[in-house]
């Protein structure tokens, strides 16, 4: 699920950036530092949408670096149990398959894959129904339901299932290349 929230961060800026475009430098550094990171508390920070305020800078003794407390608005993504997401399959093996929904890694184990899909090893490992009409392989897009999350301080990992109504392949790279 996506959220638009305000976060705060202390930015350290090198003295060489002090000048007319100090503020721009500060923002671009903030984006570089923060976007794409993950915190267990808020989820993945997808994008910074604006700066709320930049506090007074504090010059560090010895180094000359200046610390600015910056408040910024950002979009975060945090997966929840029970959430339905669409993901791209990244790896298929005998134990199940891995998929990515944006920054989130999701593992779908083989017993959460419908019983009529069988693992086919080979050049392109995949799960296929007996009549061959549905195939899950690398690069397939699947809709899945998250049934468990593991949230660490800097990492979120999910397990999902496609063994439910309206879940499964939504576009097959093999079908229309």
């Amino acid at each position: 699920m996506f959220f638009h929230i305000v976060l705060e961060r202390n930015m350290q800026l090198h003295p060489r950036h002090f000048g007319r475009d100090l503020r721009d430098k500060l923002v671009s550094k903030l984006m570089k530092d923060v976007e794409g990171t993950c915190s267990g508390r808020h989820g993945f920070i997808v994008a910074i949408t604006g700066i709320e305020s930049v506090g007074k800078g504090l010059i560090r003794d010895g180094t000359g670096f200046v610390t600015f407390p910056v408040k910024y608005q950002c979009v975060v993504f945090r997966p929840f149990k029970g959430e339905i997401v669409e993901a791209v399959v990244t790896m298929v093996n005998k134990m199940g398959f891995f998929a990515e929904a944006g920054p989130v890694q999701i593992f779908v184990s083989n017993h959460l894959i419908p019983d009529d899909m069988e693992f086919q090893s080979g050049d392109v490992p995949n799960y296929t129904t007996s009549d061959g009409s549905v195939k899950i392989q690398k690069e397939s897009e699947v809709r899945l339901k998250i049934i468990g999350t593991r949230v660490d301080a800097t990492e979120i990992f999910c397990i999902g299932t496609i063994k439910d109504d309206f879940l499964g392949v939504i576009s097959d790279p093999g079908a229309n290349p």
Partner: protein
Amino acid sequence: MSSIEPFNRLVKLAARAFYDDLPTKGENQTKTGRSDNRGLAVVILDALTRRQWVREEDLAKDLKLHTKQLRRTLRFFEEEKLITRDHRKETAKGAKIYNAAVAATADGQQNGRDGDDKLKLHTHSYCCLDYSQIYDVVRYRLHRMKKKLKDELDSKNTVQEYICPGCNKRYTALDALRLISPYDEYFHCESCNGVLVAESDKLAAQELGDGDDNARRRRQEKLKDMLTKMEEQLKPLMDQLGRVKDLPVPEFGNLQAWELRANAAGRANGDYNANDPSKNSQGLGFGGTPMPYLGETKVEVAFSDEKGDIKSVNPSAPTKVLPPWMIREGMNLTKEQRGEAKSEETKSDLKTALELSDDKKSTVNDDTKNIQDEYVKAYYAALLLRQREKEETSKKEEESPNKEVSTERQVGEKSKRDDFEGDDVEWEDAAPPTGSTSDPIDLNKEAAASDSSDEEDIWEDG
């Protein structure tokens, strides 16, 4: 407590369904074969359904169990939320309160533990079934069982577990990212690098196989089987749950509240009178209303005093509150000595006047008495004719033979309530102040002894 029966049945069913094999291995391992304790839990729960709050030592004695053994099981039940327990330090006196409460409960077990009167403080433990919680616990348990089986059945919402056959280390699917190896398509153990196998099912875990289709199908069947079996074997329990659903849950409250209530109930049943002499004076007439109140608030002494006051005051009041036993008493007295005295008093006098007359009676002259007699008779007859219907008159006729002696009193009576016929009862009412003020308790006894009840009723009806 009429609704307690279905709940007891629920407890019994639950006990047999879930706690049949208790106590479990921990104990049996230590002393194997020496004694087979299985089923003990059921026995204890059954015993508890027949009791309310019970002291654990007493329960142990009743069940011929060792206290320690009983305690262990009770502690288990407490954890299972089936019973509530209460521990308190108490002297022998405290124990007596409890005993009284036990005696008062209808189905309470009489256990004569009154004997040991040590003044030392002992910690006593009490336990009691907690019906409302039992109901919830059982329901929750059933729900969990069903949910687990169902989830397992369609593999829904279950996190797959993996186990390393080499070092028995377990992983869940959440660890999957760390377990994949770049070289093959299996998960590898972090510590020994062995190939992990999926723990295909937790419930029917015979074949730790590689989760091929056959195994999976077999597992499914097993689970389905289990589910149906559970449904049918636990059906009585579920039915009972449904039956109990809309019934009010019997609540005993905590130990103190229960004791108070039980004691109060005992008093209301009449047990109390035997115990408390102060109550005796009240007689049956007051039995109904005040008792429960007394029991709860424990202000019996003050209350009874108050009653006494009321009694003494009553005679002066013209209302019909006059206690029946007083009537009795008055009658007896008057027959012996006081007929004359009363005759003096005319209808106009209230009871207060009668009281005065009592004092004077000895001084009264016979002459005056005769005159009064005549007058009274005439007056009485006139009144009677005017007001009474035939039934009343008939009664009067019955009484008339006595009248020569007692007419005077009747007259006194009439002044108070014209409506009433000239029954003996009426003048009896008037009499009480004379004799009764001295010792009400005696009066009461006399009242009890004589069969005054019929007359009372008539009087009250009027």
